[in-house]
């Protein structure tokens, strides 16, 4: 009994210490210097909420659908490891996309999963809010699954209604992705082409 009590006390102390070590910082008020000490960059003000949902671009028989959701305390582990990639946790946007070109499905990742970040069916869209940027913009990392390349980009809500409580009801957003420049020493550079729409305007689906 005495041993069990000691163990419980130890666990309690450890848990208490752990809680004290991790500081929660608002996603609306963080800087790169806060990305340490297992800090939690939390969306306390709901700045990610307007992005959540289904967005669609249509042009004749072509269609590009984006589904976004919020992922809390994102910090995946290294491959086949329990060690975390980052020294911090953050609320982020993740999601998938489906591209139909001239009536033909080019790629469909909408059945994405949200648990194992190393899985081939894990959400290919990652969106991060930067409080030094626009209030309605997230910065994207998108896996182009046709060519197998991580694209960079952004997603910005450009039309919205302001509600009586000062929240917004988004109507339209721009989607823009491009290749990140770089030099590749003693390795093959990825293909330059991009197989999904690079710059379009999406409508928010009800």
């Amino acid at each position, binding site marked *: 009994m005495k041993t069990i009590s000691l163990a419980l006390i130890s666990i309690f102390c450890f848990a208490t210490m752990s809680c004290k070590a991790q500081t929660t910082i608002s996603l609306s008020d963080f800087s*790169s210097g806060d990305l340490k000490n297992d800090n939690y960059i939390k969306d306390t003000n709901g700045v990610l909420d307007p992005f959540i949902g289904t967005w669609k671009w249509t042009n004749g028989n072509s269609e590009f659908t984006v589904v976004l959701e919020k992922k809390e305390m994102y910090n995946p582990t290294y491959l086949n490891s329990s060690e975390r990639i980052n020294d911090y946790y953050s609320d982020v946007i993740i999601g998938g996309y489906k591209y139909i070109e001239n009536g033909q499905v080019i790629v469909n990742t909408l059945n994405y999963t949200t648990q194992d*970040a190393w899985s081939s069916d894990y959400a290919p869209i990652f969106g991060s809010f*930067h409080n030094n940027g626009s209030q309605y913009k997230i910065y994207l990392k998108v896996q182009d699954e046709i060519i197998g390349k991580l694209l960079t980009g952004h997603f910005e809500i450009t039309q919205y209604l302001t509600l009586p409580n000062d929240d917004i009801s988004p109507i339209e957003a721009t989607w823009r992705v491009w*290749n990140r*420049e770089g030099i590749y020493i003693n390795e*093959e550079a990825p293909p330059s082409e991009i197989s999904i729409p690079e710059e379009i305007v999406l409508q928010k689906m009800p």
Partner: protein
Amino acid sequence: MKNISSFSVFGIILFLIVVTGFSSCEMDDFEGDLPIENNSNIKITTKSYEDLKFDSKFILPFTEIANKIKTSSYTGRGSYMEETYNFTIDSTIIKEIKTDKYVSYTMLIRRDRIPENYFENLVIEVTDTSDTKAYIYQYFPNSPIQKKSHGSFIFDFNFNVIPIQYDENGKASITVGCRLAVDYCNWPNGTDDDAHIAGEGCTKAYIYQEYYELACNDGGGSSPGNYNYSPTGYYSGYNSSDPTPGGGYWGNSTHTQPITCYGLNCPEKFYISNPCDELQEISNDTDYVSELNDLENATANETLVIASDSTDLEGNIVFTFENIPGGEDQVEATINASIHSTAHNHTDADDQLSVFSLSDLYALYVLAGSGFIDDSYAHILVTNQGSGTQYALKFDDMEAFETWGDTFFMGWDLDLGPDTKNPIKESRENIYELDVNPENSNSKNESGLLKFIEAQGLGLELYETNEDFSQWSKIILNNDETTSPDPCQ
């Protein structure tokens, strides 16, 4: 006479020597092959073996040394002395110091087993009043040699003198000049702070001699000296003044210009880097500047220029370039030999960064781990963003950079297949983008990059250059996250 094998002469003399092959002062008077340094009747000329092989004053004693002291053979690049004098004379560069009655020839000595903490010169001294003499000068740098522009150096050192004389029987014996004289140049301000070993172009008014005297009761002339050497077997030396060059009593100062070990065969620990001087070497090279201008003017594809360097007869750096055109956003290159620096461009002002991308930093990490660059390497970027940005990253602590990269880029290049996103790459890009992204102003990206460098402990320094690539400045991050240039002097 004393046998050289029984001892060596050691003069413990600390003095600052600034060696410039082609510092700014040299530009004043240099004209072709003419000896252009002339003060107190001293003329200093850098020559090659080819220049001197028909000069009897040089070739006779040179050949005599080569042949009489257990010589096997010699070529235009060196003679080989075995056993006691087991070294090769590198006659690629020969410093000739000449007066009306005196001439000395200084050459670099190389050994099969590179000494760890010193380098050596052979000095042959010919006068009209005494026998030809030869000495081995061993220089022990007290601190790493600081590389300056155009292959020149600054360093403090102690030195040993091993005199060589050969008698008619071909038996090695020794004698020694009582003084070592080094010709200095204190251009441009005539102060001690400006002092460096006189280069070939030093204006006459700035030339003066420093004398380093070995304890010596020699009567001069052809007789060997009597030496007051210490119980340790080393001679001590002290600074003297106003002797005259040439053989003879109290006048037998040995004039020489130390030829520092240079090039790839030297122990690296002799050297320390000065980023400003290294970048200035780039600015001073018209071909390199032309390459940078081409990069700056490019509007379509990204291009990588790989610069390699070698040292010419005068110790100057000579650049050669490999120009690798890439795609719109990226360029790939195979590097499997030592390089001096690389330069590349960002051509799309809308989507590309005004500073280095994280992929550029990863490329630097790959290069650092390849063994094909050292800590003098320059990672140069020119862009057409706004009025154009022109940067160079230099290592402040190359080991720290590699250590950082080992963690930060761990898993960066995992090949997971086309439909699997790399969460590490995604995460690292996201962190970098908080400080550096294409929507930022140039100044914000500049400070963002410096913030990233400081916060992550990258061991890198950021430099910028002006429009014509002639002047570099280190960029400093201020407390208010603005930046300030600290111009290279």
